[in-house]
């Protein structure tokens, strides 16, 4: 085995697989988004921006285009829910990770294990659990009824709140682990130094702990935000398909073979949003490095 050659052929399989299963197909998706919807599902090659126009406009009976907020609302809701999920995950992860990091060594290993464990449990099972809890006659409803607080209530399922709960629950481990890693690297002497220099707990948290764990928070934000934008399970099962997100909108277009070019156009839009987010994040990271 020659090391010089290995530099080439060691990387070749990764390149080939990614090129054939990712780069090339994404190129095809872009082409499909520009093609024309086929008569019997599928698509016919062509160059048309109809699918993108459909995101904003609706064709009425006379063939005129009228603005429709339907899909914009879905995109907006997706961004809003993904953003909110990321924020809630960060707010939950920071104190939890801090307590875990401060725990004695023996406890720490156990707590890290416990916080990772749900991540290993199948996502679909974890989402399903919330159906049992939130659903009609579910755990929450029964508990509230048992306490005599409500006589009858609307289902908690199929709401934005249900989706939000499911998203936070699904992705919280992806936030905790990087945040924990950066808190662990934090020198405890820095916290003591802050107190020594007359900083209260609140000042220490805001001016010492938070800035120093920001890299972990940002890494976690990327890990949570990106998959949230493309979430499929949560909107279908907890949103019941009534409140759509971009993920299940795309899935529906391909699922029933209904409108591939439109589905591809939404997918390209989603990809664009993710890229803008990642680029902003990279710019911010670079700025921080140049400051440091």
């Amino acid at each position: 085995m020659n090391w010089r050659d290995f530099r080439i052929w060691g990387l070749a399989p990764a390149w080939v697989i990614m090129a054939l299963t990712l780069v090339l197909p994404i190129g095809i998706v872009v082409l499909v988004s520009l093609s024309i919807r086929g008569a019997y599902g599928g698509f016919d090659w062509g160059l048309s921006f109809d699918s993108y126009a459909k995101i904003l406009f609706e064709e009425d009976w006379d063939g005129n285009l009228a603005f429709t907020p339907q899909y914009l609302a879905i995109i907006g809701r997706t961004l809003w829910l993904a953003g909110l999920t990321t924020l809630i995950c960060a707010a939950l992860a920071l104190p939890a990770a801090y307590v875990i990091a401060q725990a004695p060594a023996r406890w720490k290993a156990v707590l890290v294990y416990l916080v990772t464990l749900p991540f290993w449990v199948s996502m679909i099972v974890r989402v399903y659990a919330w159906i049992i809890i939130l659903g009609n006659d579910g755990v929450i409803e029964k508990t509230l009824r048992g306490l005599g607080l409500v006589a009858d209530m609307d289902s908690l399922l199929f709401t934005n709140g249900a989706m939000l709960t499911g998203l936070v629950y699904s992705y919280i481990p992806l936030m905790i682990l990087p945040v924990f890693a950066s808190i662990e690297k934090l020198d405890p002497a820095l916290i003591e130094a802050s107190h020594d220099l007359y900083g209260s707990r609140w000042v220490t948290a805001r001016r010492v702990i938070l800035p120093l764990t920001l890299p972990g928070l940002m890494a976690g934000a990327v890990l949570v935000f990106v998959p949230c934008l493309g979430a499929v399970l949560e909107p279908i099962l907890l949103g019941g398909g009534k409140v759509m997100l971009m993920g299940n909108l795309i899935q529906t277009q391909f699922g029933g073979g209904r409108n591939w070019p439109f589905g591809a156009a939404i997918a390209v839009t989603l990809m664009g949003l993710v890229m803008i987010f990642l680029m902003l994040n990279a710019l911010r990271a670079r700025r921080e490095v140049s400051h440091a």
Partner: protein
Amino acid sequence: MRDVRRYPGARIFTALFFLWLYLPILVVIAYSFNENRLASVWTGFSLRWYESALHNRALLDAVQISLTVAGIATAIATTVALMAALVLVRGRDVRLRRLSETVVNLPLLLPEIVLAVAVLILFSQIGLQNGLLKLVIAHSAFCIPFAFLPIRARLQGMEPDFEEAAQDLYASPWVTFRRVTLPLIAPGVFAGAMLAFVISMDDFITSNLLNSGGSTTLPVYIFGLIKQGTTPELNAISTLIVLGSLILATTALVLTFRNPNRA
């Protein structure tokens, strides 16, 4: 003396957080022992749904398909990731190093639904029919970064001294890899393989979109059951999956954190 590092309320918050983390899973487990046909009406303790789950042909088929796909995809992804990590961490003057690293991690940078749509269209265009093969290809691709990251971390955490010492002591590059590098990064390789396996077993979005007769994976099968409504059997199946994940996760963590330096 007060410990300035402690924040009042943080521990209670964390305790509640862990409760929230585990309550849903515990609810599923508890409901799986319900004797009643209706999941939400508790009538008594029973193991009958476990029995019926274990005799469910379609479920067992789905498990078998998931294991097959995850097994093959893990082997492919881990091998590819190991090779890439060796070049990217240890190689000198590697051209396109940063680009290559991005390429290897590409599946992490995009929402899975986009990748799923992409492979779906690709397979329909080249007319690939074999459902199992489609799954293996797609899963291998998106599992690569999950196998890659722990291997790279382990390699980066290992001083190149050991490999240099091996070469210094007349070991050829291949002997160096087999007798020094591989044993020392084995925990990372194992962790990567485990992660790839779990990601593949757990995958819903791609498997669902590519789903065709004879290639229904476990999550896709469960999804179908959930759509039909909550049943105690579904709870039993979920509990079995939780149990399986628990065993897998514990094995993985124990093996990963076992320090090879301590004999």
